[in-house]
């Protein structure tokens, strides 16, 4: 993807990202590898960025594009909320992501926006390349996601508890990182619920061992 004309050597988040909603909140997860060509530019990246106190986004695609988009959404959301006087909703934040991505098709961005708000509870929206907006109970993205569509279809079930969801996210990321060269490092997770935000990290060598033959 970085080999497109004009994007050679660009900083890309190769990536495995995932977000899953449960009753009462959401769990977001991502790996921590950023690549420039075949060199790992940053092995401890944080790809889960807050756009509001209760809303986060997982970034994948071009680092520069996604960082700029997330900064714009944070800024616009803040002004919007001070004008309306309401707390930000995940739907509003996701719509802002979609508007930026759809109106600027040259941007290489695949973003999952998830969080908790009073109106919808925990919700997950995904904005892939092209700028469509899809609300779903869970979403996976990035180059590593192609390897676990089957796993997710088999193992996701609605109505999971917080611990089950966290376990599902961790396992999914482990499988993604095991097979995708552009994903690796450590696993970062963020749990958002009505009580606030809980960030966590699992180092790469502490993940459960995947069968390697």
């Amino acid at each position, binding site marked *: 993807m970085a080999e497109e004309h004009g*994007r050679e050597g660009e*900083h890309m988040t190769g990536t495995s990202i995932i977000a899953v909603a449960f009753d009462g909140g959401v769990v977001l997860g991502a790996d921590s590898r950023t690549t*420039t060509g075949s060199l790992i*530019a*940053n092995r401890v990246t944080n790809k889960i960025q807050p756009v509001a106190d209760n809303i986060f986004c997982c970034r994948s695609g071009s*680092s*520069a594009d996604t960082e*700029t988009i997330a900064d714009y959404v944070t800024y616009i959301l803040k002004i919007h909320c001070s004008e309306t006087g309401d707390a930000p909703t995940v739907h509003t934040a996701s719509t802002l992501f979609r508007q930026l991505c759809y109106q600027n098709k040259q941007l290489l961005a695949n973003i999952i926006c998830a969080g908790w708000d009073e109106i919808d509870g925990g919700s997950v929206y995904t904005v892939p390349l092209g700028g469509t907006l899809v609300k779903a109970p869970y979403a996976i993205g990035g180059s590593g996601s192609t390897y676990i569509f089957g796993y997710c279809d088999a193992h996701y079930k609605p109505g999971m508890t917080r611990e089950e969801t966290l376990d599902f996210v961790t396992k999914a990321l482990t499988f993604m990182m095991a097979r995708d060269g552009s994903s690796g490092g450590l696993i970062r997770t963020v749990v958002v619920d009505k009580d606030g935000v809980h960030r966590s990290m699992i180092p790469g060598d502490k993940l459960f061992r995947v069968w390697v033959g």
Partner: protein
Amino acid sequence: EEANKQKTEAEAQESMLELLQQEKGGGFGFDLCARNAFLEQRLGMRFPNVRKTGTTIVGLTTKDCVVLAADTRATEGPLVADKNCEKIHYIAPNIHCCGAGTSADTENTTGLISSKLALHRLSTGRQSRIATALRMTRQHLFHYQGYVSAALILGGVDLHGPQLHMIYPHGSASQLPFATMGSGSLAATGVLETYWKEGLELEDGVRIAHDAVCAGILNDMGSGGFVDVTIIHKDGTTERRRNMDHPTQRTFKNPAGYTFPAGTTPVLLKEVFPAKKDATVEAAAPAAKEGEAEDMQQ
């Protein structure tokens, strides 16, 4: 044939006129690229290579300071254009920035951000923050979509403590405890990954940064010259150790210098031309007194 030649001359002149009269819209104007291509094609002129800093730049955070280090070689293709250039640029009294990539781009970008921050300081009356410098630089680089080829390591100390950021030409950035960029970064990464740990003392940090740049100088062809180190202390003051070390000095150098006895180079032919007889040297006219205009003489 004469008519054809005149016609192509006329066409060439017309195309030049067209180029000159092209309207300038916003953003980059590429009319000089067309003119360069024209000159290269019609007159066979070769243009010099862009001067790049091949480079090893390194930054690391110690317990409460930031150490930035860099080599000093600037290259123009395979040629070393400058053996002792400065790659650690001033941004603010408490913020400095190492630059890799095209020299002109790094120098002008850091110069621009530095003057914007100076005006900002006059407006706010406060010490500059690294987040401000970071945001300005990222937005500037993103605006130019990676065509401004500046890869920077921004480091400094402000009210939030010591911070180090890597900024890429397309406008993305990462905050890290230690960082390296440039062609020598692969060599320097080995040193940093082995020896860096949290809570380093200042002189340990300086030694590790110096060793990382030396690894780049010794193992990368695009890096060389001296090792420059800049330390930003926890109180926001900066200590510059310019040319701290020279790992690749010329070993075989005669301390007495080089003197060659007369006749070392054989003289094959000697011709002497006297200066022209009709050239005379005159004393200069006295300077005009203040208030008096000099007479113009036709």
